[in-house]
């Protein structure tokens, strides 16, 4: 996608000068500068935990900077909360939407500043009309009367953006806006951003996705470990250069894989049927196997049975019929513990729901499958020393930051480091089969490279790896064999080396593999 700039380089809207933010002894932002012009799309690029969110929280009034200045329209401002930021025309769209599910789109947008009749009764008609006006003006299709719980994620995001616009914002901060969108919705978002800047709004975009920065931003500020690195014109740099600036070294996008011949079948699934939570059949006779020393990529659009398949495989859900064996051993409809003992370890899709006990310390999370085994416990008493030692070693090996946080709650870690804790645990289990479900979701390129390295390492050791991912790029760069899932069945299979993005896309949409 080509990007057409609407930036007015002579009108500065926001300037952040030498922003420092400390939490105790920890410096989250170390002299960061940022300037934003009218009509500009300014990307902020940094690894997980680099300090992007902190900087944005300073800008929208949630944090007080320890030192430094913020200028809005050339005047220095001091903000004492998000209200002040809104009054100054700064609005933030959070990664996790803050909408009231049973309320309508209109109700959510006007919440807090409802237009009223005689100061008491909400003027529904006026509100609805204003919402429609705004959505038309910026080409954001929403149904003002739909309830949030009934609309798609893409539309929910448009509601969040409208909410900010309704409050008169001229600067919009979008935090990881594409994290949960489908490719089509991402295209629509890019168009919305274009419409906004055409109208003189400025946009700050927080993202890890270099492709998107290239596609829609004018400038990009790079932050690394809390420090300001530099600001570049996006048109002057390529993706590799940006990635290198972000992590401070060259990043290898190509995954190095040695040639391997797959060995015996490890996981064998035959004619598997299962229902989803509504009781509708979602797996309809699925057949799949994974052999030693290969990564099988399961690709498909979300909602075609991937979630249920992984739940059945890991023992969280009961299937209706079919068979599943691990190295010849029956694991059909067993408990999670039995499946684990049979040789299945798993990186769950939702790291906060299934992967970690966030209130537990990092060291306790690392032993969650082994707490009742030596050396971590003896006769029912935990051996704290061994647990700490295990954590120190794994955190070093898997580069979990910050070091020395073994006893701190896992919830304090950034998303990427939380994922590293899970990877450390599951890879160290070193089971016959590793199931990885969206293992790099929400991670930056440095962390993605890291995760990929460990998946390939398991394969190279002769383990079987089942990669379930909604990221086609990830599937294509890692898999030895790609299986396409559509409507609860495997509808096609291609060797990883021969994979073609267009053809996979066609198959994912339900088309059969072409004959040529």
């Amino acid at each position: 996608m080509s990007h057409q700039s609407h930036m007015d380089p002579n009108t500065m809207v926001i300037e952040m000068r030498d922003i420092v933010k400390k939490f105790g002894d920890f410096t989250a932002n170390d002299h960061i500068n940022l300037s934003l012009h009218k009509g500009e799309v300014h990307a902020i690029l940094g690894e997980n935990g680099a300090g992007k969110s902190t900087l944005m929280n300073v800008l929208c009034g949630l944090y007080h900077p320890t030192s430094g200045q913020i200028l809005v329209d050339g005047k220095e401002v001091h903000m004492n909360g998000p209200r002040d930021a809104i009054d100054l025309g700064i609005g933030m769209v959070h990664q996790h939407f803050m909408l009231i599910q049973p309320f309508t789109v209109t109700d959510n947008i006007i919440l807090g500043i409802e237009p009223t009749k005689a100061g008491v009764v909400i003027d529904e008609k006026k509100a609805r009309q204003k919402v429609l006006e705004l959505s038309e003006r910026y080409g954001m299709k929403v149904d003002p009367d739909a309830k949030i719980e009934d609309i798609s994620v893409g539309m929910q995001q448009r509601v969040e953006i409208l909410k900010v616009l309704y409050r008169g914002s001229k600067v919009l901060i979008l935090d990881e806006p594409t994290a949960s969108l489908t490719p089509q919705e991402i295209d629509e978002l890019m168009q919305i951003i274009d419409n906004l800047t055409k109208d003189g709004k400025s946009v700050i975009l927080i993202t890890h996705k270099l492709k998107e920065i290239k596609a829609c931003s004018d400038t990009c500020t790079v932050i690394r470990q809390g420090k300001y690195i530099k600001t570049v014109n996006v048109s002057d740099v390529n993706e590799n250069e940006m990635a290198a600036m972000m992590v401070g070294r060259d990043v290898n996008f190509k995954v190095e894989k040695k040639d391997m011949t797959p060995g015996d079948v490890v996981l064998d699934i035959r004619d598997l049927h299962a229902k989803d939570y509504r009781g509708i059949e979602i797996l309809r006779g699925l057949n799949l196997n994974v052999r030693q020393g290969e990564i099988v990529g399961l690709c498909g659009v979300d909602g075609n049975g991937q979630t249920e398949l992984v739940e059945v495989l890991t023992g969280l859900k009961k299937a209706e019929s079919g068979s599943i064996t691990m190295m010849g051993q029956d694991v059909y409809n067993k408990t999670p513990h039995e499946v684990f003992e049979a040789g299945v370890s798993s990186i769950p899709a939702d790291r906060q729901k299934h992967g970690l006990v966030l209130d537990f310390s990092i060291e306790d999370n690392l032993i969650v499958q082994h707490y009742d085994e030596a050396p971590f416990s003896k006769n029912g008493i935990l051996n704290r020393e061994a647990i700490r030692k295990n954590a120190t070693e794994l955190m070093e090996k898997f580069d979990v930051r910050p070091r020395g946080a073994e006893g701190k709650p896992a919830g304090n870690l950034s998303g990427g480091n939380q994922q590293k804790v899970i990877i450390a645990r599951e890879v160290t289990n070193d089971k016959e089969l590793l199931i990885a479900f969206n293992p790099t979701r929400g991670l930056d390129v440095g962390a993605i490279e890291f995760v990929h390295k460990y998946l390939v390492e398991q394969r190279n050791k002769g383990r079987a790896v089942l990669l379930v991912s909604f990221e086609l790029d990830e599937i294509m760069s890692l898999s030895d064999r790609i299986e396409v899932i559509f409507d609860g069945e495997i509808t096609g299979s291609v060797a990883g080396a021969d994979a073609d993005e267009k053809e996979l896309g066609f198959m994912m949409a339900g088309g059969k593999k072409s004959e040529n």
Partner: protein
Amino acid sequence: MKTKKGILDSNLFYTVLAIMIGFCIGAIFLVIAGISPAVAYGKLIDSVFSKPKYMVWTLVYAAPVIFTGLSVAFSFRTGVFNIGAEGQYIVGSVAACVVGILFHLPPVVHALVCILAAAIAGCLWSLIVGILKTKRGIHEVLSFIMFNWIAYYLQNYIVNLPAIHKQSGGEATENVADAARILLPEGLMRSLDCSGANWGFVFAVIAAIVIYIIIEKTTLGYQLKAVGFNKNAAEFAGINVNRSMLTALGISGALAGLGGAMQTLGMSGRLSQLAAQEGFGFEGITVALIAGSNPLGCIFSGIFYGAMKYGGSKLTMVKAPSEVVNIIMGCVIIFIAISQVFKTVFTSIGKKKKEA
């Protein structure tokens, strides 16, 4: 600066603050009632600390609420809400009383059998609710509250059974056998000059230490906490969630049942027909909250509650209503519950000062 910040962060500080505010609000009510707070609080302090025997009495009052406090604290730490400690306390005291009257065993053994019976009764009472939760998905808070009332009427029914009802009439049971009592030895009791001095407090301290070890040091505690904090992740890691939940509820119920045994075998020596729920289980919630759900903390918050109950009972001597104690305790809980608000306010004031 650092130490000041440390104080502002510590929960103990807010607990002490909440207690002080509780007393201040209690004072307001005393003034409204036309009683000098200085006199009333003076009496309160006097009646707890002025004589060694008063302090022993305080510990006697503390023992059952330490147990119910432990029961609730244990449930908080393992992710269930045992609001049914009241009912478990009642069935515990009933079991201890019935075994104490009907069995004839040698001293010490008899008492231990009674205590065991109380623990089992409390445990089972709680497990029924646990099974309703795990098998049928019924929220434990609802069934616990109903089971409190079932236990209450069950006690009134059992008290009136001819086999254990007092021969000479009155709405109480026979006294339990002397062998079943957990009173201190005669000589020691006489030198302490306290007719109710019993081993209850010692048992309570031992129980608190055992519960502390279970929660902090054992694989069992690890497992129960994992399920309590994040059921999904625990299940995903292969922990049997339902069994863990039942274990947690069972232990919690046993603790409340033990509280009932301490009161029956230590203090009253028999059961009376109830006109209202006695509230030991609900007081346990207060004790657990003041202790921040720390089992060792329950010893101290239990003593505090015991002192308030014992001292409060003497307030009528200065014509102050003893209910003022309940007002104070209620306020303490409210202010502990909103201590997060204080924390935010204080830390932001601290910050502002630093910036200015």
